[in-house]
């Protein structure tokens, strides 16, 4: 199949049309990124009165710091759990909302709501649910013999931030899965049904494979979400505690840079994170290209 190509004459108009985006990228990405790279190679006081070039000192310190390496592992675990949970839940909900049920429109709308909730507000909702002294759930848990105090129990704290973060992302995933499901021709599903395939079999052999491009895209987006955008939720819920049990990389960047004013170390961590995102994006493009232009 040959594509119809539209060729603009000259280069002025294309450049003009691209200019706003290029300007935004330069202003909000290239410039600060260059600043971060510069700061990651320096050691200075917070006031910027003295700064000395220290080469890769900040990076060496980072990668010899067991607490940083622990944060890397913790972040991987956190991202994996959040992505798995929010994708799994969203997929189940999307499949259910896609089937012919009464009040379908209502469920669809209701499921999209949490996406509009600001991270800190989401955190407050979860605090009201899970606070050991004033929360709604701990009394029920204690009846089951579970002593709930996420401010002191690292595992419980991790569960809390994973739940809160995953809950917020379910809506987003739901929309994409639902759109993905609706783009699957009904004829295929119906043909399978006539051949006698049950709902589970239809899901695993038809829907799930056909959703693969959507899933692939969402996995990347979710990993990026859980690595970066969960900062507000974690900071409001646990501030990375107890004893660093919920300190992910982006929380650590904030702690070291904004709270502790150690700009060199914080910038070095930002640069490492930036490299991580670039790698992730590259993988995503490769993956999508291999699957053809499905999206």
């Amino acid at each position: 199949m040959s594509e119809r190509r539209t060729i603009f004459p000259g280069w002025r108009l294309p450049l003009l049309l691209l200019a706003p985006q290029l300007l935004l990228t330069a202003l909000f990405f290239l410039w600060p990124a260059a600043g971060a790279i510069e700061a990651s190679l320096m050691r200075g006081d917070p006031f910027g009165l003295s700064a000395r070039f220290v080469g890769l000192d900040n990076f060496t310190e980072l990668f010899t710091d067991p607490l940083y390496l622990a944060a890397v592992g913790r972040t991987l675990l956190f991202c994996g759990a959040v992505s798995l949970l929010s994708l799994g839940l969203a997929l189940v909900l999307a499949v259910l909302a896609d089937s012919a049920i009464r009040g379908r429109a209502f469920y669809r709308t209701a499921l999209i709501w949490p996406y509009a909730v600001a991270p800190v507000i989401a955190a407050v909702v979860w605090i009201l649910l899970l606070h050991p002294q004033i929360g709604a759930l701990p009394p029920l848990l204690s009846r089951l013999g579970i002593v709930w105090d996420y401010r002191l129990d690292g595992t419980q704290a991790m569960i809390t931030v994973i739940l809160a973060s995953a809950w917020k992302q379910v809506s987003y995933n739901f929309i994409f899965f639902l759109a993905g499901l609706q783009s699957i021709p009904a004829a295929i599903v119906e043909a399978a049904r006539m051949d006698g395939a049950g709902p589970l079999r239809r899901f695993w052999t038809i829907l799930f494979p056909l959703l693969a491009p959507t899933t692939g895209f969402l996995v990347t987006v979710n990993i990026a979400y859980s690595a970066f955008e969960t900062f507000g939720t974690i900071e409001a819920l646990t501030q990375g505690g107890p004893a660093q049990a919920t300190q992910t990389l982006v929380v650590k960047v904030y702690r070291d840079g904004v709270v502790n004013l150690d700009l060199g170390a914080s910038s070095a961590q930002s640069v490492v994170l930036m490299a991580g995102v670039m790698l992730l994006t590259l993988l995503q493009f490769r993956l999508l290209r291999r699957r053809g232009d499905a999206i």
Partner: protein
Amino acid sequence: MNRRHLLAGAAALTAAAALPAAFAAPARAQDRPVVTFWHAMSGPLGEEVKKVCDAFNAAQSAVTVAPVFKGTYGETMTAAIAAFRAGQAPHLVQVFEVGTGSMLGAGPAVRQVWQLAQETGIAFDPAAYMPAVRSYYSLPDGSMAAMPFNSSTPVMWLNADLFERAGLDPAAPPATWQEVAAAADALKTKASAKVAMTTAWPTWVMMENFGALHDLPYATKANGFEGLDAELVFNAPPYVAQIQRLLDMAKAGTFTYGGRGAAGDQIFPVGETGLSFNSSAVRAAFSRDAKFRFAAALLPYDPSVRASPNNSIIGGASLWTMTAPRRTPAEYKAVADFLKFISQPDSDARWSKATGYVPVTLAGAGLSLAQGYYARTPGADIAIRQLNRGAVTENSKGLRLGRLPEIRTIIEEEFEAALQGRQGAQAALDSAVARGNKVLREFEKSMRG
């Protein structure tokens, strides 16, 4: 009314608005030069800051001091530093006591009080300020670096109702840690208090002030006052014993950890807590929220460490004068005038009575006393009495360590790990010392450029 009248009216209004600006301007207070004052006092405390500024603005006609709320202490300090880097620093910024070490390293970014006095000719007498307050913000030679503003100190808060139910006398509060442990036991068993004892600001109360009260060094080099190369030493046996005591009490269910920093604030006013350690400045909030009788008492001490306790150290914040390009001598003079104004006895006394912070000047405390404030408000003098217990020593005049907020968090993290049962008291403090020293070395390197 017809259309012509309307038009005429509109024309007249336009003319009035277009009157030469010079005609109206001098009458407006906003056109006086503005001195910006960034602070971190939210809610009722922010209102009080505004009252102080309004009083100063009414008392003179040269400048207008404009208070601006910039968030928490940490956020305010970060904002001020960012503003300085952009050449837009406020004239005055309120910095919490633990930020003092970092601000002292700020060199030309700030004008210390003694420099300001020299430049403007407006003198400040250090002897006018309360010793335990002044020493925290002074250089080793005694000259003042920052202006004391809102100072508090941790005290022990007790729920008098629960105390009586436990068969304890709230008028004779426990004075030693041994008595505190026994009282907490009684509160749990006899009064079935949901929380027998808790604390806000675990590091400030249980470590920094424990050291001051018992005259124990927290760090070498006179707690950092005498050099950037200070090393933390709070893993000595008495500190370990104190943490062990808290761990034991937690295990016995008589101590409930309330979280880092101010997180423990919310627990006591609910009424199910017998004993709480918190800043003396929460009095106003407790008076508003608590539906039970409560009282403040002196911090307990451990007689096996020291026979009689020393003064406690302060918390709260001080005011720093910041510099910016093209800032005029007149502006610095206005700042000095304002600092002088808030140090006046009546201003200081009014501020302290309205907020619950201790008066920072001796004359301010004297004025409140003469006005009968402490007789009317029993317990309001606890903080002052405690700040003046014993004599100020090298170990009780405060801490002068860079990045101290970070070190506080490190201690709380290690304490949390110990409460989880993942390590003992000694291991927790050893690890906190090692991590804290690393932070101090980083700070030292960054200061030496």
